[in-house]
């Protein structure tokens, strides 16, 4: 037994839950008997854990009531010129308002897909990174993009690949102000590399079909389809990255493929924000009122979990975020989304609500959306997440051991040329030694 998991609990948890978790819950005195040399002294958190558990339970009750109220608003709100006018007013009042603009006639639509593609290609891409480490022996960062191409219905083994890239030049490591690039910057480059890989694979896959546009090709990435970094793109460099990102979407469109963003546990609240604005009289849509939503603690997932059955999708929406309604929309790549329940059970408590992002141009054909929905739902069989993204992540992930191996390889290679072995900083070495027992 690992001591850190041996947490003394009170009677809050029901025995079947405790048993189903496979964790033995002992009396508080066991935790109090833990050796005092543990790095995280759990005994000091016992009371807080109890308080937090009660708070979570209380909030769950409150959110449940709010969600029920919000679902009633969802059902009662009509999609008409008045609603669209309110949305426009909200954007005018608060330019950063990330609500949703409905693209269909009813907000509470539940759609069962009809069409299903027999043979198609499903591409999954994911990326991983090693961030610049000021205390490491050598300054660099790494991106590793994993990809898999499944030809569904073919019986063939999929095509897998990894693309590791090492960035070490001064132009790679420092921005225009000569500051070392930060993690957010590296994340942006990774996003762009993922999208570039999707575009390249989509093009290659269309060549596999000898240019025949009939077979469906879905190019899926983990996470939203809009570039996250783009929301705060201020510098010219970041703007340029956004332009290149959108160009990849265009390249995918050119070969008749569809880019998909899959968000497995969405915390977005675009539709919830829409409902709040929908409730407001037109005259009260001010910045202050828009930002004081009664439903601010809710997520869209909570809204749709009781609404969508297995393999049912919601209506289509478009985020009103600035980057989507300006940069993406102006380039003809406005991103829409729908929510989908990928659960296999009819039990509402077992609902698994995910969010699927796709460009608006791909939503013109209801049959295509049906095929996309079915393809995603089927690919989540057994893994509760698209199989192609599970595998792409597996191909992309860089473990701590692999990072250490790369650091060693670099240090040895450099020492063979320079005659000096680069070392970690004193701080890194001291931490490594002091944390030995914790790991």
């Amino acid at each position, binding site marked *: 037994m690992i001591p850190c998991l041996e947490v003394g609990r009170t009677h809050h948890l029901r025995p079947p839950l405790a048993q189903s978790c496979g964790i033995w819950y002992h009396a508080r005195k066991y935790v109090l008997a833990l050796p005092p040399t543990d790095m995280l002294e759990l005994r000091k958190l016992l009371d807080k854990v109890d308080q937090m558990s009660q708070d979570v339970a209380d909030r769950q009750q409150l959110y449940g009531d709010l969600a029920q109220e919000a679902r009633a608003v969802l059902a009662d709100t009509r999609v008409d010129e008045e609603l669209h006018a309110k949305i426009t007013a909200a954007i005018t009042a608060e330019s950063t308002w990330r609500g949703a603009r409905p693209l269909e006639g009813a907000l509470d639509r539940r759609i069962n897909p009809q069409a299903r593609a027999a043979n198609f290609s499903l591409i999954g891409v994911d990326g991983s990174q090693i961030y610049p480490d000021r205390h490491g022996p050598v300054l660099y960062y790494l991106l590793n993009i994993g990809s898999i191409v499944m030809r569904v219905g073919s019986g*063939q083994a999929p095509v897998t690949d990894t693309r590791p890239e090492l960035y070490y030049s001064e132009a790679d490591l420092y921005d225009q102000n000569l500051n070392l690039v930060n993690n957010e910057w590296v994340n942006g480059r990774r996003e762009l590399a993922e999208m570039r890989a999707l575009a390249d694979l989509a093009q290659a896959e269309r060549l596999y079909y000898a240019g025949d546009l009939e077979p469906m090709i879905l190019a899926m990435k983990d996470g939203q389809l809009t570039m996250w970094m783009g929301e705060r793109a201020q510098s010219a460099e970041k703007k340029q990255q956004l332009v290149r990102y959108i160009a990849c979407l265009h390249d995918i469109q050119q070969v008749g493929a569809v880019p998909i963003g899959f968000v497995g546990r969405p915390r977005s609240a675009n539709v919830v924000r829409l409902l709040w604005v929908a409730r407001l009289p037109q005259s009260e849509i001010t910045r202050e009122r828009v930002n004081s939503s009664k439903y601010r603690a809710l997520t869209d997932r909570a809204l749709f979990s009781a609404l969508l059955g297995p393999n049912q999708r919601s209506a289509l929406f478009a985020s009103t975020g600035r980057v989507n309604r300006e940069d993406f929309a102006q380039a003809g790549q406005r991103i829409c989304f729908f929510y989908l329940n990928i659960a296999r059970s009819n039990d509402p408590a077992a609902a698994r609500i995910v969010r699927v992002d796709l460009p608006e141009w791909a939503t013109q054909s209801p049959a295509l959306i049906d095929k996309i929905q079915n393809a995603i739902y089927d690919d989540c*069989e057994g893994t509760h997440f698209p199989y192609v993204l599970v595998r792409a992540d*597996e191909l992309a992930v860089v473990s701590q051991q692999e990072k250490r191996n790369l650091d060693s390889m670099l240090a040895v290679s450099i020492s063979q040329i320079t005659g000096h072995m680069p070392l970690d900083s004193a701080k890194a070495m001291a931490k490594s030694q002091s944390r030995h027992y914790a790991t």
Partner: protein
Amino acid sequence: MNHADPVLGRVLRSSTTGYTFGFSQAHTQPPAFGALVKTAVGDSHVFGLVYDQRVMDDALVRQIVASSDSLSEERIQDMRMRRQTPIEISVLSIGYEQGGTIYQLLPPHPPDALQPIFACTPDESRRVLTSFQYFRTVLDNMECPSEELLVASIRHGAGCQPPGQAQPYLIGAGRELTRLLAHDHQRLDAILRRLADFFNATHSLPEVPYG
């Protein structure tokens, strides 16, 4: 060793009596139980018999198998051919070749980690398995299924003999077994019974596959 020969895998761990290697060929079958494989140790070659093959599972395989009513062929192919699900193959060292002479003794040194493993050609198998001294090594090893392994290697050795020599080979093997297991009739009987059908069919021996 011809470096153009396909590498079956590389040593993961080793000892004086044998080693385990990870099988890395995506498009071929791993070597069969009782097959003879070889690897280099210094300036000599060590020969061994394959006695165990393990296909390791992992959390993703277990999850998919447990929660899916049906598996697509694409996923099965992905699991088998693309994922790094390791196949570990254990080998019992039975001899080594040094200076052109084959010694059916435990090798002086085990192979190093990551040393490549190759399949033995039929000619190599015939040369190595001509002598029956390795029988004692197999019979005395507690980690391998020694009776089954001996039967498999004798069959393999017989299949490598020139035309018309398979039965004399088997007769010679049987005599050696009788000598070694004179005081263990049960064990001797178990092995000879397994060889009997093969002995009777030696007039139509199939060609021994490479590896």
